[in-house]
């Protein structure tokens, strides 16, 4: 029974990677064959960046889904986080290779001077660090520090959302919605932390277990 569940979870994960990479593949083929409009590089860059943000947001939805709706999709969170990282990597690669044409002087100027680009690079750097430590070995090796490290995903989400808002000349409904979703997901964490603190004191006085209803899942808290 248990092994079948594990296997089906593995298949779902595999399917998640497969389906998750479809937008990148489709967009790339369209761009390479001139079916991405008049400014294909720009559309490709934006598509990749937007999907990075979407997967990042989806990975942040896992905890509230579990806590508020009782739906536990924790076993798919790493896949979502990694998809966010891969899309961020594609996005950065498209910017450096296709857009800038490896013009390293412009890249250096962008990275050092422009908050818009710095925010994007910060989000990418964090995602890269989290992706690199997303394996079982790193989790065992880092112990408690792993959790602290992976809380940086909140910073990545903030940077990515602001980066997205700044990528347009004016505030748009779309960017505002993404920003609000990120803000709501972060607000949930703040609320949860406060609620746990509030609960822990009276709870320990009563001799009950702390506020952690899901101790086994805590390793993946992010």
């Amino acid at each position: 029974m248990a092994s079948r569940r594990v296997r089906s979870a593995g298949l779902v994960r595999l399917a998640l990677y497969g389906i998750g990479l479809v937008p990148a593949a489709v967009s790339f083929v369209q761009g390479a064959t001139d079916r991405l409009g008049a400014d294909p590089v720009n559309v490709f860059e934006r598509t990749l960046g937007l999907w990075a943000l979407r997967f990042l947001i989806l990975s942040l939805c896992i905890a509230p889904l579990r806590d508020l709706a009782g739906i536990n999709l924790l076993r798919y969170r790493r896949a979502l986080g990694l998809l966010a990282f891969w899309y961020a990597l594609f996005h950065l690669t498209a910017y450096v290779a296709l857009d800038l044409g490896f013009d390293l002087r412009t890249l250096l100027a962008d990275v050092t001077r422009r908050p818009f680009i710095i925010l994007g690079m910060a989000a990418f750097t964090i995602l890269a660090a989290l992706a690199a430590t997303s394996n079982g070995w790193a989790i065992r090796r880092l112990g408690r520090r792993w959790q602290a490290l992976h809380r940086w995903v909140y910073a990545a989400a903030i940077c990515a959302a602001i980066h997205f808002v700044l990528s347009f000349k004016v505030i748009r409904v779309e960017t505002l919605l993404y920003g609000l979703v990120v803000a709501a997901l972060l607000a949930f964490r703040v609320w949860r932390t406060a609620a746990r603190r509030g609960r822990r004191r009276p709870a320990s006085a009563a001799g009950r277990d702390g506020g952690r209803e899901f101790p086994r899942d805590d390793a993946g808290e992010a």
Partner: protein
Amino acid sequence: MRVFRYPAPPPSSITPHRAWLSRRDLLAAGAAAGLTGLVMPPRAAGAADLAARPGALSNAGLKPTPLRDVTHYNNFYEFGLEKTDPADRSADFQPRPWTIRVDGMVAKPRTYDIDALLARPLEERIYRMRCVEAWSMVIPWIGFALRDLLAEVEPLGSAKYVAFESVVRPSQMPGQGGVLPVLDWPYVEALRLDEALHPLTILAVGLYGQTLPNQNGAPVRLVVPWKYGFKGIKSVVRIRLTDRMPRTSWNVRAPDEYGFYANVNPAVDHPRWSQASERPIGTGGFFGASRQPTLPFNGYGAQVAGLYAGMDLRRDF
């Protein structure tokens, strides 16, 4: 008014009118071959053929961006924020009847009817167009020098600036009634009087041998080729001469990002991106063409740099 004389290009560099027309025959042939949708989009509603002689100040040697891209990729926030919105959402716009009021500090204020403007001697001006967003096109405009129009209304000696105002029609321009305020309508732009009088500055009433499509600013728009594209105000209804520097839409929206002058300048970056280079539009897919360097004054420095002698263009960007 003083008459500027600029070096004319050698006759050999001017596309003969017949050759220019035969290009359109080629397109028509392509359409006949069943490639209509690919080669030539259906003419925008109301757009008609428009004859023009090649202008002496035209960049005849440049290869124009395909018509499809010129008419289906541009910013015209009155119709929406996406670059495909102007083409997709401008079908209901009525560019006729239309008048432009020219007044303010002039001796003879006048109201021009669009038909009278179209009946003037028109020139084709192939110009580079550099968007502030770091992409560029080459567009064969049809129009006439703004200076000719201004000469007719006789600017007073006190006039220092020329202010332009766009049409406000939320019922026909869906972008003017959006959920979030984008820009204050009407869209307003302005030039210093000497910039407005420069022979490169034109009022365009057409492009690619046809009257201006709705999405490109029908029926009449400003084209100032050495400035970023947003200075080229579209669907103009009023031109006013004044002695005070007028407000301009993007400058009001974000003064640190969009200056009053907005001269194309590779040395002054937008806060969020470099202006040193640009992506030419319509070169086909990822691998069609790479970035090209952006030229000071968009390549028109020899003609216009003198207008800004002694100015710090980093401060007055």
